[in-house]
């Protein structure tokens, strides 16, 4: 009888532990290649990244955009994540939101014309993703070319 109870306790503990929110670790390397490509005259930028996205988590990528350049930013994520929310924020005292794709129906691509070199924060999140247990992949692809002016 004692053995049966010991087994019961162990089984219950295992079942309960299984109910804990567990975030699955995974590699997202190369996921950015699934994002929409830039027009052909743009060059690939080393600022491109793939990231793991979780519920209620914001990913911020600190970057520098050079002046007299145009940057084509393209975001994408696994379909389970729903729409990808992306904002570009000035990385200075003002922390001004320079662009928010939520006002553009979560559009996945945007062209930025940079007049002078600036530090920016590129913020990614999946506001409609409610899965506590699993993480999914997202990517941000960045291309650039020199402005004509």
């Amino acid at each position, binding site marked *: *009888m*004692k053995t049966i*109870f010991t087994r*019961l*306790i162990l089984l*219950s*503990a295992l079942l*309960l*532990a299984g*109910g*804990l*929110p567990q975030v699955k670790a995974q*590699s*997202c*390397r*190369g996921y950015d290649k699934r994002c929409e490509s830039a027009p052909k005259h743009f060059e*690939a*930028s*080393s*600022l*491109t*990244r*793939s*990231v793991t996205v*979780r*519920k*209620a*988590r*914001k*990913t*911020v*990528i*600190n*970057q*520098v*955009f*050079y*002046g007299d*350049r*145009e940057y084509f930013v393209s975001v994408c994520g696994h379909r389970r994540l729903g729409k990808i929310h992306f904002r*570009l924020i*000035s990385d*200075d*005292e*003002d922390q*001004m939101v*320079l*662009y928010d794709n939520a006002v553009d129906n979560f559009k996945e691509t*945007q*062209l*930025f*014309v*940079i*007049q*002078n*070199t*600036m*530090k920016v924060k590129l913020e990614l999140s999946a506001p409609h993703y409610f899965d*506590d247990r699993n993480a999914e992949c997202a990517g941000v692809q960045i291309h*650039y070319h020199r402005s004509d002016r």
Partner: protein
Amino acid sequence: MKQFSAMKQTTVALLMMMGSWMTTTAQDIAVSQEEMVVEYYAVPSPEEILSYIHNNEITYTPKLMNSPTNSDKYQTSKERLVAFGMYLADMAYAGSFEQSGTALRYFEVTERSGKSMNLFPAEIEGLVERMLNNMNRIDSINNIYDELYLMVIANLHDTDRFGEYALISAGGFIEALYLALNSSDSDLKEDGFRMRVWDQKMILDQLKSMFNKYLNETQKAQVMKDFEGVFAAFDEFAKSPQATTSNKRDDGAMVLGAAPAKAKAVNPIENIHQEINLLRAKWVRE
């Protein structure tokens, strides 16, 4: 039977306690997730830094590059990672001037040292093959450089090796600036050139944050000391902050920039030039 009953009560109490603990833990995780922000840094590659500064206005000066034969001199992890970044900058420099044979030599040295530091994922083998098959096509070589760089960075990012990324970026940054500042026809007196050099202060700020955040105490102390002169040179003139504005163009593009500054001479870069050369000489150990 009495013993069995006591055991049952203990079990029920234990399960209730576990249930309660599980609930609390789940709530805590939910609360902490709501506040969670994960922050990364993305530094432009040496090729992007170099091409931004020189703007096609300098002349290829091969004697400036760190010789591949020096690669065996670098022994510590910090030295090898910094040298790897420098060789990436040299490969970009040769590639941007269509020197495919020289670019290949630098590809070989980065491939060898990268493999020994486990910086590459398995896909590197396909890239090596493509490099060898495209030796005479400079466009392909430049594309392969971009892929190589992204492959390394993505691999480090994927495996949380941000300290190594910081050191590689530091090496690439210093070598790119060294090449841009010292190449023949670099116009150190020209306002546009000097402004583009001053713009690198923003990259330097990023690197400083990365050193503080990701390097172990020993490496941090060494690198911060190495950079002392460079930090001071870039802090020589205080820059008044300009508010960034954002306007949507008719075609949907967002135009971002600070209000145009009143025309004034760009500050000199002699101290920056001197400090970059000093640190580069220290790191190369020729």
